[in-house]
C-alpha cells in the first residue's frame, strides 16, 4: 500500500513527537531510580535534575528489604491481587453483560442505581460496622477484597464495550440454542479481550496500591499488605518526623533516599504487568496487518 508524501511526513513527525514523549515521561522513573541508589545526605542537598545517582549505595534498599514485615507484605498483596482480581472479573463481567442487553427491562434503572452509589455513600463507620461486626470479616484479607468486589467505574466501561458487540452475532447463537451464559463466556468474552485486559490492569493496580482499608480492618501485622508496610517504613524514616528530638541522630536514618527505594519496591513489580497485557491490544490491528 503506497503512502503519500503527506502521510510519510506525518509518520516522521509522529515518531519524533513520541520520542519526545518518552524522554519527558521517562524522567520521573529515572529520578526515582537514581534517588533510591543515592546517599541520603548528598541527596538531601541536591537540587534540580537528577540524571545520575549521587554517591551510589544500596543502603536504602537494604533498609527497606530488611523490614520484618516486607515478606509477608508481598505475600499478602499477591494473594489479594490474584484472588481479588479474579473475583472482580467474575462479577464485573456478569454485571456488564446483563446490563448491556437491550432486552433486559431493568437495565437502565439498575444502572442509575449503581451510578448513584458512585456519588452517595454512608462513610467509613457504617461500612466498618457491616464488615467487621455483622459479616465478621474484620482482621482478615477478605475485608480487603469483598467490599470492593465491583468498581462501578470499571463496570460502566466494560458495559460500554460489551454493548458494541454486534447483536446479530449473538442472535444467531441464540437461535442455534445457546444459553446466555454460553454466549457470554464463549463469544462475548473472547471478543472483548482488550477491555478485559484493561480491567485486569485497573483492578490489579487498584489492589496493588491499596492501603487505606487495611488501616481500618487489619490489626494483625502479619496481614499487612505491601503498601501499608512501605508506608510505615516511609514514616519511620521521614524527615518530617522531627518532633521533640525523638528521631535518631544517625545519618542513615535520614532516609531521604529510603523514600525513593520504597517507591521502587512498591512500583516496579506492577510496571511489568502492562507489557504482558499489551498483546491483547494488538489484535484488531494485527489482523488488518496480515491482510496487507
Amino acid at each position, binding site marked *: 500500500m503506497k503512502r503519500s508524501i503527506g502521510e510519510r511526513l506525518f509518520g516522521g513527525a509522529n515518531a519524533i513527537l513520541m520520542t519526545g514523549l518518552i524522554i519527558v515521561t521517562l524522567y520521573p522513573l529515572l529520578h526515582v531510580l537514581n534517588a533510591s541508589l543515592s546517599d541520603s*545526605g548528598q541527596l*538531601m*542537598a*541536591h*537540587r534540580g535534575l537528577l540524571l545520575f545517582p549521587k554517591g551510589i549505595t544500596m543502603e536504602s534498599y537494604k533498609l527497606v528489604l530488611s523490614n*520484618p514485615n516486607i515478606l509477608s507484605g508481598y505475600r499478602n498483596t499477591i494473594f489479594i491481587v490474584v484472588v481479588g482480581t479474579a473475583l472482580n472479573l*467474575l462479577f464485573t463481567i456478569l454485571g456488564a453483560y446483563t446490563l448491556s442487553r437491550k432486552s433486559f427491562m431493568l437495565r437502565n434503572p439498575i444502572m442509575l442505581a449503581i451510578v448513584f452509589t458512585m456519588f452517595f455513600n454512608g462513610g*467509613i*463507620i457504617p461500612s*466498618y460496622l457491616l464488615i*467487621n*461486626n455483622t*459479616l*465478621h*470479616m*474484620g*482482621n*482478615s484479607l*477478605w*475485608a480487603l477484597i*469483598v467490599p470492593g468486589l465491583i468498581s462501578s467505574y470499571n463496570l460502566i466501561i466494560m458495559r460500554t464495550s460489551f454493548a458494541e458487540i454486534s447483536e446479530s*452475532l449473538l442472535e444467531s*447463537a441464540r437461535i*442455534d*440454542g*445457546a*444459553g*446466555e*451464559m*454460553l454466549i457470554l463466556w*464463549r*463469544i462475548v468474552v473472547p471478543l472483548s479481550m482488550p477491555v478485559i485486559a484493561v480491567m485486569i490492569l485497573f483492578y490489579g493496580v487498584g489492589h496493588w496500591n491499596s492501603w487505606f482499608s*487495611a*488501616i*481500618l480492618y*487489619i*490489626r494483625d*501485622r502479619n496481614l*499487612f499488605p505491601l503498601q501499608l508496610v512501605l*508506608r*510505615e517504613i516511609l*514514616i*519511620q*524514616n521521614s*524527615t*518530617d*518526623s*522531627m*518532633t*521533640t*528530638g*525523638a*528521631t*535518631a*541522630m*544517625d*545519618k*542513615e536514618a*535520614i532516609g*531521604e533516599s529510603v523514600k525513593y527505594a520504597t517507591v521502587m519496591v512498591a512500583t516496579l513489580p506492577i510496571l511489568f504487568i502492562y507489557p504482558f497485557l499489551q498483546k491483547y491490544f494488538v489484535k484488531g490491528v494485527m489482523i488488518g496487518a496480515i491482510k496487507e
Partner: protein
Amino acid sequence: MTELLIHDTHSMGGREVMKRSWRKRLTIGICLMMSIAALGGCSGGNGSTGEAGGDGPTPISIWMSMNTNASITLKSMNEITAIKEWEKKTNTKIEFQHPAVGAETEQFNVMIASNQLPDAMFVNGDYAKLFNDGIIIRLNELIDEYAPNLKKILEENPEVAKQLKADNGDIYAIPHLRLGEYKTFGGTFIRQDWLDELKLEKPETLEEWETVLKAFKEKKGVAAPLLFGAPPKMTTMGPAAPTYLEAYGITNNTFMKDGKVVYGPIEPEYKEFLTMFHRWYQEGLIDPDFATNDQKTYDAKILSSQAGAFFTFIGGGVGRYLPALQETDPNANLTATQYPVLNKGDEPLFTGRSWEWSSSGVVLTNSNKHPEETVKALDYFFSEEGHMLKNFGVEGLTYTMKDDYPTYTDEILKNPDGLSVAQAMAKHFIANYPFVGEDDDRYNEQYYQLQQQKDAAVLFSKYSENTLKVGLPPTSLTTEESTEYSKIMSDIGTYRDEMFVKFVIGVEPIENFDKFVDQINKFNVKRAIEIQQAALDRYNAR
C-alpha cells in the same frame, strides 16, 4: 465461530444441558459469595483475653501508637525490656495493641464506633469529651487509693495537678510528666563558623540580628541568611516559628498579657514586626522562597550551606544537620542562639516551653475489668524503681551508676548490633517518647551527645520561667465552645497566614494594616478571645 459452539452443545445433548449448566454455574457463584463472607474468619477480639484468676497475673490490654524507633526493631511494645520487667514487678500481663503507623485517628474512631475497646489507651486529646461520651472513667478515687506515688507528686506540685485536672476537678488520665529543667526542644541555630570567620558576636537584639544577617548576605553571599518557612506548609512549632515576632512581646496566636487573653496579630506590635520583616525581605536577608519552602527544600538549603540561621530541633535537627555538614566541611559549626529581644538586656518571654503535663497519658475505658490493678500497675512508673526502669532501663544491662549518676552503657551508646542510640533506647526502655511516668533530665543530657546540643538545651531553657507569664496553660473548652472557637479561628488562621505572606513580600502595603485588623475583627475574634478568657478563668479556679 457460532457453528463451532453449536456443535459443542449438540454433542453434549443440547438445550437442556446448557440450561442446567448455567444454573449450576450461577449457584456456584452465589455460594462462593456467601462462603466468602463466612470464610472471613473471626475478627480479633479487643478486650483482654484470659481470666485474671485470683493469683495469676492480671491481663491488661493497652492501645498505643508505636513509636517509629521502636517499630524498626520490635514487632510490638510487648518486647521492650522495660515492659517485660514491669510485668514481673506488677504481676500483670500486658498486651499492647498498635494501630498502623500514621493511621491512629481512623483506627481509634472505628474502634469506638464498633465498641471494641481495650482496657486502656494511651491518648493525647479531648479527655473531657471521651468522658462525657462514656468511653473512659474518672480516676480520682482510684488514684487516691491505688496510686500513692502519683498522688504524692500531685500533692507536691499543685501546678501540675491543676494542669492534669479538668475544670470540674476530674482526673481522667495517668499522665506523662516532664518535671525537669529541660522544657524546650528547639530554637534558632546559627552557623557559628561563619560568625567566627566574620568576627561577629552571637546576635541577641533584633538590631544585632540585622547586622549579622546583612554580613551573611554581603560577605558570604548566601541566598537565605535567615531561612524561614511559612504556615501551613511548615508548622509554627518548627521552621515557621514566630521567633522574631515574639521579640516584640507578642506572638501570632492567642496568649496572655497581664492575665488577660489577647490575640497577637491585631496588636500594634504586629505592625512594627511586619514593617521590619518586610524590610528584611526587601534587603534579601530572608529566604525569598520562604512561602514555598517545604521540609525537603528547607533541609536542602541548610545542607548546601545556603542558610545562615534557622529554627530547628536540638535532637532531630542538629543531630542530623551537623554531622552531614561536617562531612563536606569539617569547620562547619551550628550553635544555639538565645531567643531574640527588642532591646539589649531584655529577657525573652516566649521560649517554646512545654508544660509539665504533656497532655498525653493513659486512660481507662469502660470495658476495663480490673481498674484497680491497672492504676496500681501504672503507678509503678512513678515510684523510684519504676522511674529508673522507664528512663534508664535495667541496671547492669543498659545503665550503671557512676558517682550516683545513671550512665548509659555501650549497649545503648555504642550498640553492638549497630542500632542508633535512639533505636537502642527504644528497644530497652521508654525515655524519648511520651509514656506514663516522669521524664528525667539525665536522659536528655546523655541523649544529646554533641556539645552543641547540650549547650542548646541549657540555653533554650534559661528563660523558660518567663513563658509562664505569657503562655496560655492547657485550658479546656466545652464541646460547644470548642466548636465555636474552631469555626472562628480557622477562617482567621487562613486570613492571617495569607496576609502575612502578602505583607512580608510587599504585595500588600503595610499601610493597609488597619484594614487587616478590621477584617479580623469582622471574623469575630473578640468572641474567640472571650471563650479563651472564660476557659482561662476556669483553669485558674481549679
